[in-house]
């Protein structure tokens, strides 16, 4: 087949200038079936599908802003890690007894390695000419099994993860402005409150104490009677101190 337009290069007599290739594409009626030109006919139709896809993509983007947790703090040993959703099945696999602890290498390396290796070698293991999935039950069966396993492990991981707690442990904590010399803070630092609500009211086992929207009376009530997982009778100091502390917390921004 003659390719190119037979350019004549300066000082090169081996290339013929004759036999120009016409700048007209081959007629598509020469191909079987209802074929059509990739450019531009088919590409425009593809773009219709791409546009619908893009609209969906943009709707997700606008409806769900991408998450950002608080700045990484390597000293926080309470944090329970979780990978991005498409690694959850591997994360779940490592929780099983046969794939963790002394057998960690099985869950972390052997099983994923075998899976990727098998996937890569599929064309060399399934060498029959048959292409229809129902006519080659072994490859189809293994792939469906792998798909079911990934789906099941991902589901188990999602169902067993405490997403509320995960959200709370990663939430961005506002830095609270307060005067450490103030009477309110002195009372706070001397009480048991500080062990759960943090040295700077940033929270810990209990929630952060800034911007609670609670009145002083409500805070006193919680200190006496508890709320949620906080038990009652946590306040052991005097009523006068509690009143000062509650008013201090009410105004803590």
């Amino acid at each position, binding site marked *: 087949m003659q390719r190119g337009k037979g350019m004549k290069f300066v000082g090169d007599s081996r290339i013929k200038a004759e036999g120009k290739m016409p700048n007209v594409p081959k007629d598509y009626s020469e191909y079987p079936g209802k074929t059509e030109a990739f450019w531009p006919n088919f590409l425009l139709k593809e773009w219709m599908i791409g546009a619908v896809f893009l609209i969906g993509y943009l709707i997700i983007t606008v409806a769900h802003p991408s998450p950002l947790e608080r700045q*990484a703090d390597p000293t926080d040993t309470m944090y329970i890690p979780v990978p991005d959703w498409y690694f959850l099945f591997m994360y779940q696999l490592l929780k099983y007894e046969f794939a963790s602890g002394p057998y960690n290498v099985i869950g972390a390396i052997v099983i994923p390695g075998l899976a990727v290796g098998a996937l890569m070698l599929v064309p*060399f293991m399934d060498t029959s000419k048959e292409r229809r999935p129902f006519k080659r039950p072994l490859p189809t069966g293994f792939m469906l099994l792998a798909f079911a396993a990934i789906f099941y492990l991902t589901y188990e991981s999602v169902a067993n993860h405490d997403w509320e707690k995960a959200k709370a442990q990663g939430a961005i904590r506002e830095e609270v402005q307060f005067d450490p010399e103030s009477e309110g803070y002195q009372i706070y630092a001397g009480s048991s409150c500080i062990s759960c609500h943090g040295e700077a009211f940033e929270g810990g086992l209990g929630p952060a104490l800034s911007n609670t929207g609670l009145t002083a009376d409500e805070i006193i009530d919680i200190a006496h009677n508890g709320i949620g997982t906080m038990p009652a009778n946590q306040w052991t100091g005097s009523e006068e101190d509690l009143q000062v502390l509650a008013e201090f917390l009410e105004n803590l921004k």
Partner: protein
Amino acid sequence: MLNKIYDWVDERLDITPIWRDIADHEVPEHVNPAHHFSAFIYCFGGLTFFVTVIQILSGMFLTMYYTPDIENAWKSVYYLQNEVAFGEIVRGMHHWGASLVIVMMFLHTLRVFFTGSYKKPRELNWVVGVLIFVTMLGLGFTGYLLPWDMKALFATKVGIEIAASVPFIGEQIKILLAGDSTILGAQTLTRFFAIHVFFLPAALLGLLAAHFIMIRRQGISGPL
């Protein structure tokens, strides 16, 4: 006018055959959703590439603000997310695109698998496709650390420990990725940034080129 420019360039560089190879070819009926609606399954590969292009473009814009150091990485992402005009959209597209590309690539893999399209003569293209899959997972893993927030740091810690459990060379892989045998910090962040922005995209572009050249050489697999 355009024709004249084209002819001027073509006369010197002979670009018509290149153009023919890239764009001027027939699309068979059985992959065309306009003729058979079920042929939309043949769009998954193209949509994967579409999202990949969006990932590259949005990523290029993100690096205009992002700073890969542990003091400022989180702050720069926070600023980008909350202060920069359309920063939330660009970061959002990169964030969701990272998930979508995995979804579309997975669907594309299933399509090729269940239509038996990996069979002779297309074995090599399947192998390249699996390598693209692994590269994409690597991009997802390295990109996850870059915002330097809590989930990023601790998920990467787990990931690095998994890499360290590789027999014989685990420790070396860990040091290569993290930059240190015990600390996961400033060095890790710059390494992950370099891997995410230079090494893996370079590998990805090479693999994609091989993937597409092979498709053009072999054509799409016939109807079942």
